[in-house]
């Protein structure tokens, strides 16, 4: 509903968010209070600086990428809906999913969508492929300064080699899914949100 300056969350909005993301009522209100406490400018949206202000994110090696994931293409502000939409990826997968909304083809927190989130962290230019350079960037962020570029390069090469099945020297999304099929993504990308 656009970015409103009001700081109250209306019931209809809560319902919509609930349907879209599957969070419970209390979770939504709780995350809303977190949203407002981050929103120093009090205009109902968060900017990148608001995220940068969280000290723990500053010392997270992938902090910038995580923050980036909240902002859809080339925008600088995220409202509460967008915030929740991104966070919805991290909801634990339940067997009986409460969001019985048939219109949503797949809930945001399905395994595929979680993997898509992770994939997009690598794939900055959104060409649906993780190129060697993109992989190298993320590797470099995650790794200490003791590794030389050649070593890192060979690690990246090996990574692509393991995953690449169609020989285009990059990892597509389906290859990404395949290579992580044994990994418990549901558990690794889920947070138990407080009720």
């Amino acid at each position, binding site marked *: 509903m656009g970015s409103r300056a009001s700081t109250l969350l209306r019931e209809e909005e809560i319902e919509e968010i609930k349907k879209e993301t599957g969070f419970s009522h209390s979770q939504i209100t709780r995350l809303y209070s977190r949203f407002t406490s981050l929103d120093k400018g009090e205009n109902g949206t968060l900017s990148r600086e608001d995220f940068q202000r969280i000290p723990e994110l500053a010392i997270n090696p992938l902090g910038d990428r995580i923050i980036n994931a909240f902002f859809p293409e080339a925008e600088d502000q995220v409202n509460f809906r967008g915030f929740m939409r991104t966070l919805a990826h991290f909801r634990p997968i339940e067997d009986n999913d409460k969001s019985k909304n048939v219109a949503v083809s797949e809930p945001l927190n399905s395994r595929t969508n979680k993997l898509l989130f*992770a994939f997009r962290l690598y794939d900055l230019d959104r060409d649906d492929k993780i190129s060697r350079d993109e992989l190298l960037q993320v590797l470099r962020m995650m790794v200490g300064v003791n590794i030389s570029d050649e070593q890192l390069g060979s690690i990246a090469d090996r990574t692509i080699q393991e995953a690449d099945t169609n020989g285009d020297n990059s990892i597509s999304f389906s290859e990404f899914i395949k290579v992580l099929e044994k990994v418990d993504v549901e558990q690794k990308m889920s947070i138990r949100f407080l009720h």
Partner: protein
Amino acid sequence: MGTSVLFEARTERGAFYMLLLLVLCCFGGKCELQDSKPSEQTDFPGVEPFHNEFDEPQAFPDEERANLPVFTMDYPRIQLPFEFTLWVLLASFAKIGFHIYHKITIWIPESCLLISIGLIVGAIMHSVKEEPPAVLNSNVFFLYMLPLIVLDNGYFMPTRLFFENAGTVLWYAVVGTLWNSVGIGISLFGICQFEVFGVQDINLQENLLFASIISAVDPVAALNVFDDIGVNEQTYIIIFGEGLFNDAVTVVLYNMFTFLAGLPVVESTDVFLGTARFFVVAAGGILFGLLFGFVAAFTTRFTHNVRQIEPLFVFMYSYLAYLVAECFAISSVMALITCAITMKYYVEENVSQRSCTTIRHVVKMLATISETLIFFFLGVVTITTEHEWNWAYILFTLLFAFIWRVIGILVLTQIINPFRTIPLNFKDQFGLAYGGLRGAICFALVFTLPDNINRKNLFVTASVAIIIFTVFIQGISIRPIIEYMNIRKTNKDRKTINMEVHTRMMEHVLSGIEDLCGQWSHYYWKDKFKKFNDRVLRRILIRDNRSESSILSLYKKLELQSAIGLLDAPLGDLSAAPSIVSLDDQRKEATRAKEKFLAADVRKMHKILSKNMYKIRQKTISYTNKYNLPDDSRTREILIRRHASIRRSLRAESFREQPSQNIPKSQKYYSLQPGGDLETTFPLRRRNHGGSEDGDHPSALTSRSSSRSLIPMRRLNTIKETGNAGEQPAASSQPHSPSPVDALDMRGPGGLEGSSFRGRKAPVPAPKRHLSYRIDGGEDLADSERAGEPVRPPQLPPPRGWEPEDQEPRENETLLRDSSQGPRGSGRS
């Protein structure tokens, strides 16, 4: 290969020398003691005591007239401090000796080694019929040694982590200790009923008293192991907190049961009073701690002129808190911890950086010494006290202590897990249960048992037995067991490199999102406290209170510390790309020939990755090594590598919020006060920046001649620039040679050259260069040269407004390349 053999030979010799030194010290100590004996025993039956002018023991008592003694010795005078120093030295040598062999301390916790050395020394002393110094009586321990350790624990406690898990910690500390005491006491009482064991005379109160003593868990050895095996935060803070707070509980129980042991019959009102007393003790302790903490913080507000004695206040106030609490028989441990936690936050903002470092170092040093001495004396006194050995009682004590702890942890975890956001899994519970080692508190308390307990020696023996058993057996074996458990988990899946990389990436993302959501803090109270803190407390207690965003202050603090650290020990090539960078920069060969990777290569890759990838939540690891100061080198690394993007955001933020305060320095140059001239304005700023002395500048004339040729072009451009940007009546009035050079766009390339040029030299000569031209008459040239220099290379955190971003990694690079040592290996992996 050769060098490693040589190194081992050297370490062996080194170790041998250490041991030799150790033994020599022991004997030295004892010889001193024995020397003192003869002088005491001499008596002069028939000879009148001579009093010469110095009143010293006579060297030759038979002479009628004493000559001036050229060499005298008066040992009793210095005996006490001398022996104390020798013991401390001995214990410290033992510590040095352990760390020569790194592998020893990995497998055997330090406490074990110290106790062993103590046992050896005790055996030696016992064999020469020597008495150990009476330092382990209750007063010395409780008044001098324990506060130091507790201060260390309190000062370096991870507060955020603690408050997030406060409920769990207190649950385990209070209820767990109670559970253990009561359980063990009753079981032992049950054993006492059997006549065959010969301990029938111990009644219930005494059993409970003994049980309360031995249920106090000491986290030292457990924490030592935990940081190596990578236990998670929750287990760490639970053990840490439990170890701290069950001291309080134990002392209360001890006092209560001592009191009750004197009574023939226990009534229910006594139990009720005991519970009430516990709350009084705990709450009183916290109150006293808060009081002294705030007073200490307030005091440091005014100490900016007496920086040298700033560390003193931390120690004095916390010690006062401890003593006052002891006086009123409330929990001194809690008072001290609360005082330390309260104080730390405000004091570290008020005191200077050096005082801060001093405080940390001294706290660590005192605590390490105290702990070392305690374990050492544990070993010594074990040999030299009288023991009463009763197989049954002691074995059952060990058994029950272990069983009740395990049961206790299981039951308590089941109860509290639903209330936690992360439930404790089996591995955590095992770590908690098995890591419940007993330590020095137990030992000290048992010595202070009143003598009317007739089986005191048995209790002493049993305590010693349980301490040695848990420290040695459990302490040594916990590591292999947990590693085995870890291995079992990870061997199940053969990880591909992909899995390793992507799972680590996902873990980072998850922890980032968790931090973002603020999962672990109870928001409402934390926000309220934060508001109260900002509005009220900080204003009163902190001298220089500018509310900064936490990221800015964190960044400043880290950068300040690292600015020096970087010059000393570079962290390798930090020119790694900033996180979000255009892909154009990285476009090398688009396709590489596909290489074949051997299995050995892949294994090597796995090893490289597992050693070098950043672990998540680094901040915990920095706390877990008890004997070292918190190590934030990884944090610094990450922060420095991301500082390009952080600065961008800080700049954006600062422009938005406080335009008056955070104008980038470059802009300040463009506006002079009306009527002021360049000369007077800039010297002010010069003093702020480099801190360079004014005095010695003329002498720098001749040495800078080579650099002159490069300067003129830019200087003159700057004048034009400054002339344009603000009102500069003085500039135009100063005589200066007209600039033959066109006014290049100063900001762009000039800035680049300026900063990169400066980057290649060390920062310090820069200010001197300026004044060297003063005598030439090109004063404003020199002054405006300073205008051209945007900011100092990386010592200042304020944002650089107009400098292109890719300058920053280069500057760091050049700074680091000066001292090209290897990467700083702090041994953390």
